[in-house]
């Protein structure tokens, strides 16, 4: 099947129900997208599928064949993504950093769809887990992008 990732089409030869996460990581060798739980609890594996934040660990690759998938590797090719990354650096968000690819993807999806999110909008969208507890810094960074 054909999988379109970061604008590039890849021919992938694997079982239909292989999670998108493992196609990205093992087949294509792009390791910025992380495995945390495998059951859509933590969000470390978040990618964008046609702009929607999607937990790739439970997404069968066949279900997204032909759709446009964006991973953290292409985040700075997007104007909003660049702002998000700059805000993450400015707010010194990451600690261990393992969840942050997913957090940045979730924030980018939110801010592309809703450039001026309310506090409630931020709380509803930014639900990925962070064991280092960077939640306050994450919220501050999202607010900073929203305020331009």
């Amino acid at each position, binding site marked *: 099947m054909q999988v379109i990732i970061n604008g590039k089409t890849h021919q992938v030869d694997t079982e239909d129900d292989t999670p998108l996460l493992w196609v990205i990581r093992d087949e294509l060798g792009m390791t910025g997208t992380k495995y945390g739980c495998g059951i859509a609890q933590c969000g470390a594996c978040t990618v964008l599928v046609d702009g929607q934040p999607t937990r790739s660990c439970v997404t069968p690759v066949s279900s997204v064949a032909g759709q446009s998938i964006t991973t953290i590797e292409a985040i700075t090719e997007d104007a909003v993504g660049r702002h998000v990354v700059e805000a993450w650096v400015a707010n010194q968000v990451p600690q261990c950093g393992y969840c942050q690819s997913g957090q940045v993807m979730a924030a980018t999806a939110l801010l592309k769809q809703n450039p001026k999110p309310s506090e409630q909008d931020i709380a509803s969208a930014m639900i990925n887990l962070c064991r280092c507890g960077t939640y306050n*810094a994450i919220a501050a960074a999202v607010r900073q992008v929203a305020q331009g």
Partner: protein
Amino acid sequence: MNSMNHDFLAADSLEGRPVNLSRRSFVGASLGALVLGVALPGSRALAQTAAAAAKAAPRVSAFLEIRADSSVLLRSPFIEGGQGIATAMAQIVGEELDADPASFTVECAPAGSDYRIMNGQRFTGGSRSVRSSYETMRRIGASARQMLLQAAANRLQVPVASLTTEPGRVRHAASNRTLDYGTLATDAAALPVPESVTLRDEKDFRWIGKPVARLDARDKSTGKAVYSIDMQVDGMLRAAVQHAPRLSLEPGAFANEAEVKAMPGVHSIHRLPGAVAVVADRWWRARRAVETLKVTWDEPVSSASRKMPADYSSEGRKAQLAAAPGPGVTAETVGDAAAALKGAAKTVTATYDAPYLAHGQLEPPSALARWNDDGTLDLWLPNQAPEMFQGLAAKAAGIPPEKVKIHSPVLGGFFGRHFIYETANPFPQAILLSKAVGRPVKLIWSREEEFLRDALRPMGLVRFRAGLDANGMPVAFDAEAVGEGPVGRWFGRKPDAADSSSVEGISGKPYAIPNRRVAHVVVDDPAIIGFWRSVGHSMNDFFYETFFDEVADAGKQDPFELRLRLLADKPRHKTLLEAVGELSGGWKRGPFTAPDGSKRARGVAMASPFGSEVATIAEVSLKSGAVAVHDVWVAIDPGRIVNPGIIEAQVNSAVALGLSSALLEEVVYAKGVPQARNFDGYPILPPDRMPRVHVRIVESGAPMGGIGEPGLPGVPPAVVNAVAALTGQRVRSLPLSKMKFGDT
């Protein structure tokens, strides 16, 4: 880990004298680079070992490499796992080298004697990295600077005294000439290391003490940071395991081996100690295959060293701890607690407990093993102590330690997870699998396998008795901490001494209570227990500081005021308590009505973990019967500091983990098996339960304390004390999610 050091390591030695290692051949060191090692302090034998090791294994590189472009590579003894240690090391070395920390690349040094700078030891833990290496790292930076100055003096044919440095270069003011460090590195490398160096005056610090930006923030915001789980080498296969559901069972017959062998991508099926593995071309295929394999799990042969009983439960464990008779091994005695209790006007007794906890670091454990043609073994793996892992990996591989090369990528969280814990580390499995298939193998434990084999924060239980005089002042205090601690488990128990990791946070409290006894009642734990952020403090400060409020209530005293009174002769603690009161806008216990109409209350707690002092206040309300924490105020006194920005981040992080443990976390055993296998069954703090965190750093000038862990222990007691003030209910068993509160 704090206590481990007190018990097993002598005092810090801070006299490490750098030696120039440049003229030996170092693999990976660029040509002509200035390379500095450090002679091990105080011990000729150790220094000789280091030198011998360096000769025998030339890949043992040194600390510092200045490249032609004047950028700096620092091989740090410590592992970055979120705590900011890479940035702190760059600040400390850069300050003395006179090089901007932003020009540094910091990587974790390989295993090797050169890096055992913690009095012959090396590990990342116990909140000890900065305080144990501060002077040594400054000397390394200062020595390198001195050598660069000398090289410039030779080049320009001027006296060294006529030269100065500015970040990244040497200046000769008289002739207005400058030389970049990069152009001097080759010459400097050929010079002897100065016998003594002058360190910079603290008042002239440009980077130490400042909120210097983390070196890894951008890479970690763009997916570029590479963790062990991300490592890839040529020809690599991938492996997944299915562990015995109950620890100590061994794999028996397979019911469907042919079916599994025929699954896509499967290379081979393997029996391992306590587990089965499938090696495949892709991890998902390996995982699916190994989980399809139907295995009969057999009881172990009777010689198995540690056996998990088939009927073991955490409920049963709690009952066992509660029933274990005292008096235990004494940890602290002041005055005569027994007599004072007898003569007390009033006594208070209570039993507290806290559950097993999982680390829940977000990066699942992995190990990549590669056997090389020359008989050496490369290992990439999450670890907090490269030499300890090297030693055990060598045993597992059956080769000498110097043939094992340990690579330590950044950690996707650790919190104590990545020490050596027998069955809790994947690397022995990866070594066996790689050897069996004759190719490199990357083994990843699924989250479910990780929950099955994590080394847990042990369950703890404490029996308290306090006596008050007629004025309501505490005059006697007696505590028996029951259970087993990780220091005793992994570093040997002393027969007549309490395990410090079982009593820390209960013994050594600063309050002026004239008669005290603290004891440890040892009850062996069949589970694999380990170090969990702030170790014994993670529960003991909850026990003590919450019981303290019970005592205050019994004596009809305000808990904040009583603490102040009992700290009257402890200026450092008193100052800190007053600081957190002020930070929170003035102490008020409540209950009171907040502007949003909710009824709230506050609790306070103090802790003395890892060489630092901490005072914490939390504000809570109830929402739908659950505890909501709105604000946490933390005043922390680590004596002296390196990076206030990172300290504030670490306090936020410690508050999150402490709160997570207070509100939600509990590993439950039934029939010898931990019940939760993923975050659905073991919830951790989600973003919508994170409070605002307010931090005040107090630099008392006391000897430097730790940062990574100290923010944690005060949080559970501050929260639970606030809950008591709000509801009148004393919670003596965590987590709070076990309780249902009526909305007040």
